[in-house]
């Protein structure tokens, strides 16, 4: 049994060293889909933070009882339940955003980050670190999505949170509104961060 991880270490991993989007390249589908407006991104982030933390916690609480063979089935059930709760809550209290996000909230179920963390971490670790791991990973995801949205919305619509910030003569970059815009933004972002802030472990290996 490996030594229990410190919570600072868990957060450092989730937010930076093992960032789910930039380092593990997971959850790309929703990264491309919902980042053209900051408001949508914020709601999506909140949904994922809740789903991932709670799923990790639940999977961890049940880890000693869940039979090995059916663990994936159980995880999917747990994740799906939380996602549907999120979906219903958004539809009930934020109907406009629910409409804008369309099927993407439901698709959190298939977001690889969620099951990935349940499999890789939560099912072998105690509840509290698992919860923190879920929280840290989803915050890492949220940070990347927000960064991309902060690039896409001003360039694609000329606005930030709906407020116009670009000068009147600014021609919106149509490509930034569509998925390919996110693809290029994400690629450039990952490239930039990798080039200027090399991964700690990779650096050590090279020496």
């Amino acid at each position, binding site marked *: 049994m490996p030594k229990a991880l410190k919570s600072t270490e868990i957060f450092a991993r989730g937010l930076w060293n093992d960032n789910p989007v930039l380092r593990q390249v997971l959850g790309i589908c929703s990264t491309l889909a919902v980042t053209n407006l900051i408001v949508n991104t914020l709601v999506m982030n909140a949904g994922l933070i809740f789903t991932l933390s709670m799923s990790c916690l639940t999977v961890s609480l049940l880890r000693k009882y869940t*039979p090995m063979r059916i663990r994936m089935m159980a995880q999917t059930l747990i994740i799906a339940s939380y996602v549907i709760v999120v979906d219903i809550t958004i*539809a*009930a209290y934020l109907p406009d955003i629910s409409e804008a996000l369309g099927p993407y909230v439901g698709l959190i179920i298939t977001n690889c980050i969620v099951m990935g963390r349940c499999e890789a971490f939560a099912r072998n670790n105690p509840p509290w670190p698992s919860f923190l791991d879920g929280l840290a990973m989803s915050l890492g995801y949220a940070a990347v999505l927000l960064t991309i949205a902060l690039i896409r919305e001003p360039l694609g619509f000329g606005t930030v949170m709906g407020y116009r910030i670009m000068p009147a003569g600014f021609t919106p970059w149509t490509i930034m509104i569509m998925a390919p815009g996110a693809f290029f933004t994400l690629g450039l972002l990952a490239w930039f961060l990798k080039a200027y802030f090399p991964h700690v472990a990779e650096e050590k290996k090279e020496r």
Partner: protein
Amino acid sequence: MKKRLFSILYMFFLTLFFTSVVSGVKLYNEERIAMNQQVKLLRVVLHVLRIPVQEGASPQAVAQIFAERVKEVEVRERPLYIAYAEDGETISGYAFPVSGQGFWGPIIGLAAVDPSAAKLLGVAFFRHSETPGLGARITEERFTGQFKGLPLYPIEEEEKIFYLKAEGTGQAENELDAITGATGTSRAVEAFLNRELDYFLEAIRPELKRKG
């Protein structure tokens, strides 16, 4: 064997537990979600019929205005909303749903005409899956506002009620601005909205004549 049985029972109770929780949440919020959708439709109906609703009016307030000013009937198996002026007797317009295939998926909206079905009062789209920032701009007032006052009568044979032209190039009264960068959506709207308007006018004009 025992292990297998345990797996089955475990999964059964886990499923039972989680589906119960989800069902509970759903039941608790069901009314609210249905209300949201209903009020969204009512708002759009009132909007195209040009019945003023205060900004930020509560769902109950919207429902009340609707109840006072609009009557819903059925024509050719489709709903028809009859709007009454504030006196509660004079008809101020008719609204009806319009729908068709957009560029990415179905578009559902409403159109309203004046009491003699000679002019459009307004058009609004409330369900669609067009590209945000491009085709999705069909929901903006900048686009739908053009339809206000569009003449519907008389229509020449072979001629459409309206045409969508490149922005700023429209000459005639029935040549409106398409959405730049969303040619597919614009074409789709032109096609289905003309068709739906024709369909509705055919249905309602004989009725109006009989009454008038």
